[in-house]
């Protein structure tokens, strides 16, 4: 085990990024034209990075599995984007956003990265407005804000319940402009299946054209991963059906360390699971907690009467309701961070007070807000969310409380990166959700959009230059190099093996099974016995999958089952790493709740003296356990304390 060095610049926290930018190497415009960059993914991070790098004059190749860059799953983000603008004059500042993010992440994120994130957050809003993103405004014509979980100021910018869509379309516009200018080349409907390393540096990728099945070799001076999170390891999640870990996982197999894989975010407000055939879960924005009050019946008698449909939720008088978040956390109430809200819902449902047909749901009630603010105001704030809810469950939130339950939403873990967002493979960068860097053990609401765009628009364009300044003498990389041919043939072999194993069960069958194992043993609450059992079950599943998966169709045609099989194979391996990570972290922090480590009133019990580190895992081989490295987290600015929202 080694201690990792994040190469954080010297100097006071607030000056580090300025100092870095003043000191980093630059590439002159003539040389930028000679340098090629591959970007994988076109979500907020990938699209903003590809556009910005194209604007700077580099040659960019951008890859996405969707038919167009505009469909990346950032588009589904609803609530908003944080920025320390202090337009509301309510006491916000860069320092406060930094502080809230570190605290919200339960003190498991790197101070210097988070400070930089808070610092550039304001630039993002300026740029997005200049791009024409239609953020919500006041009648005076200026921008308005809303509150979000884990903060006591109002710093979230939003575009109704479709903020992610509007931000992504802004980035997609910028990207389209560079495509038109010939600086960015788009490769859509491509799955990136491997990284190519030449003389220790990332020099290209192996991709599969999803329409023709062709295995392609693409070369560049450097590669940027922006392939998003791995929530689909749970099968049911709020991610898109195609969201996958494969590009990041192939980087891991080639030597990039994977950090804190067990840190996954279970979002408290999703539409509950309703049947075995279900294919995905739908999120209801956290912004709903601004006005919605969360409750379950306080009396078991009412729980039963509700379930037997003898009474309606509105028949239960206020004194017989348990507004458990307001009860347990009076200071933050319904706006506690996501991990806290999710666990509190699980606690009530496990105790038998859950509602709905399965008993795994709680109410999110707008009756008071509608009375206080009026139907029209609530409609203008949440109209599309209410509509979306009604389409799925055929109930109107204006008439009866929503029913919600936590679901897998975001992954804080990801590829380990240093301050420059470079992985442990030189020349391989990771940005957005696919890296681990800024959210610690729990991400605050409206911070994912902020991080994706910060990385892509304002951080990577500087740090990648510092790397490429040393590459100006490297001629264009040749994709006929032996390393490319070997990697391509390994990919073909892997696909052939999957395709021709003569199995009998579908990919989805195994994926569902994987999801069950992960949700049960490595979900909202974890313990030693469960995790140990999961290791055994996953090992068995991996064997069954390799022998038993059935993939119809041919290799050289559009074959969605083959795509899914590649993804699920990697998810199974990732699942094992998540479990190993959860086992070694014998403390509770953020989204990682180990039942053995809790306070007497059921709150997460952190252990800073033993676990204030980032666990970064190194691939050792297919049947060999991964090796763990540590990056010690040093808190110089913020004093570690037990997180309290009471």
């Amino acid at each position, binding site marked *: 085990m080694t201690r990792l060095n994040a190469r954080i610049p010297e100097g006071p926290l607030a000056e580090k990024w300025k100092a870095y930018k003043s000191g980093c190497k630059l590439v002159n415009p003539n040389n930028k034209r000679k340098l090629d960059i591959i970007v994988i993914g076109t979500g907020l991070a990938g699209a903003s990075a590809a556009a910005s790098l194209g604007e700077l004059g580099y040659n960019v190749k951008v890859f996405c599995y969707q038919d167009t860059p505009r*469909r990346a799953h950032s588009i589904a983000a609803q609530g908003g984007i944080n920025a320390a603008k202090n337009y509301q004059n309510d006491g916000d500042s860069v320092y406060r956003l930094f502080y809230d993010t570190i605290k919200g992440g339960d003190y498991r994120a790197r101070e210097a990265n988070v400070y930089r994130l808070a610092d550039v957050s304001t630039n993002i809003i300026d*740029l997005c407005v200049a791009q024409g993103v239609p953020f919500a405004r006041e*009648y005076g014509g200026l921008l308005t804000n809303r509150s979000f979980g884990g903060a006591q100021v109002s710093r979230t910018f939003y575009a109704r319940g479709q903020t992610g869509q509007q931000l992504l379309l802004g980035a997609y516009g910028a990207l389209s402009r560079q495509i038109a200018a010939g600086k960015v080349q788009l490769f859509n409907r491509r799955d990136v299946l491997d990284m190519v390393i030449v003389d220790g540096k990332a020099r290209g990728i192996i991709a599969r054209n999803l329409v023709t099945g062709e295995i392609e070799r693409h070369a560049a001076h450097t590669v940027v991963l922006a392939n998003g999170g791995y929530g689909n390891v749970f099968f049911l999640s709020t991610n898109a059906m195609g969201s996958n870990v494969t590009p990041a996982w192939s980087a891991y197999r080639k030597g990039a360390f994977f950090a804190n894989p067990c840190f996954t975010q279970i979002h408290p407000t999703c539409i509950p699971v309703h049947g075995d055939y279900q294919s995905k879960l739908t999120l209801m924005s956290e912004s709903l907690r601004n006005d919605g009050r969360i409750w379950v019946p306080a009396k078991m008698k009412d729980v039963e009467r509700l379930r037997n449909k003898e009474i309606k939720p509105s028949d239960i008088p206020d004194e017989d309701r348990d507004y458990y978040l307001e009860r347990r956390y009076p200071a933050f109430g319904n706006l506690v961070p996501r991990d806290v809200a999710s666990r509190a819902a699980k606690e009530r449902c496990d105790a038998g007070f859950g509602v709905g047909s399965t008993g795994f749901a709680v109410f999110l009630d707008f009756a008071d807000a509608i009375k206080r603010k009026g139907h029209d105001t609530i409609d203008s704030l949440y109209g599309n969310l209410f509509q979306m809810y009604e389409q799925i469950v055929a109930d109107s939130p204006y008439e009866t409380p929503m029913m919600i339950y936590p679901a897998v939403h975001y992954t804080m873990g990801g590829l380990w990166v240093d301050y420059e967002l470079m992985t442990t493979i030189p020349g391989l960068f990771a940005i957005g959700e696919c890296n681990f860097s800024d959210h610690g053990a729990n991400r605050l609401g409206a911070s994912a959009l902020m991080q994706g765009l910060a990385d892509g*628009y304002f951080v990577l364009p500087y740090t990648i230059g510092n790397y490429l300044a040393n590459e100006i003498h490297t001629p264009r990389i040749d994709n006929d190099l032996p390393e490319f041919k070997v990697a391509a043939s390994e990919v073909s072999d892997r696909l052939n093996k999957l395709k021709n194993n003569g199995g009998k069960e579908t990919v*989805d069958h195994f994926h569902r099974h994987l999801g069950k194992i992960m949700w049960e043993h490595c979900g909202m609450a974890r313990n030693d016995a469960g995790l140990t059992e999961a290791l055994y079950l996953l090992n068995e599943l991996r064997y069954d999958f390799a022998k038993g998966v059935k993939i119809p169709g041919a290799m050289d*045609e559009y074959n969605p089952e083959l795509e899914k099989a590649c993804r699920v194979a990697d998810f199974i391996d990732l699942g094992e790493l998540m479990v190993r990570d959860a086992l070694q972290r014998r403390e509770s922090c953020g989204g990682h709740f180990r039942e053995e480590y809790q306070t007497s009133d059921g709150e997460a019990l952190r252990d800073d003296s033993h676990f204030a580190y980032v666990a970064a895992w190194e691939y050792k081989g297919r049947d060999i356990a991964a090796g763990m490295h540590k990056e010690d987290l040093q808190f110089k600015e913020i004093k570690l304390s037990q997180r309290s929202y009471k």
Partner: protein
Amino acid sequence: MNFKLKIWRQKNAKEKGGMVSYDVTGISPDSSFFEMLDFLNQQLIISGGDPVAFDHDCREGICGTCSLYINGRPHGPVKGVTTCQLHMRSFRDGDTIHIEPWRARAFPVIRDLIVNRSAFDRIIQAGGYISVNSGGVPDANSIPVPKHDSDAAFDAATCIGCGACVASCSNAAAMLFIGAKVSHLALLPQGRIEASKRVQSMVARMDELGFGSCSNTYACEAECPKGISVINIARMNRQFLHAKLVSEKEKIIRESL
């Protein structure tokens, strides 16, 4: 619930396609349309058949990937939803359901129910953006925008680029798609600077790509899952006419000098 499905099957862009019948049984009314198709595909795979290819991704109505023409209507019988938001309770037990891909010259079939909509990307590349680089922009609040303009811009900007407007149009016109983007940007002070150039290049690109022209049947508005209004087409036409007149005038002045 039980259904008889008649689905368009086509191996690739070159081969001819045709409708094929399938039966599905025991479907929950709460399952989504795609969950019903997932169920069919699982059965087809197990029994050695060839699963039906269809485009889908977010399954929550926002990414715009899904594109099924169901019983003669883009995204099926329910107004204001995408295919992925359609649930089987919207059909009657025993119904026969016809499922086809988008039909338009500019959207060639890739396989079964999947079409190539890259033409939309190429229209946006022709100018569907504001030309600013990352960095060097003014403070966000230095550009005040009247709330009603901002709200109208947002309404136009909610287009998900699914192509239902093209699929519903008897001429396969892309006017609602372009009108939405032109309006979104022209309604904002930031976007007005390039407005006339934008509308001209986007319309020119649309013509190149083989989309038809608008004959004001308003089918696009009726079938748009996001309820984008045809007012946006009117706004675009006004913009276009204005831009043409101005450029004609400029040309005459230039020539007379």
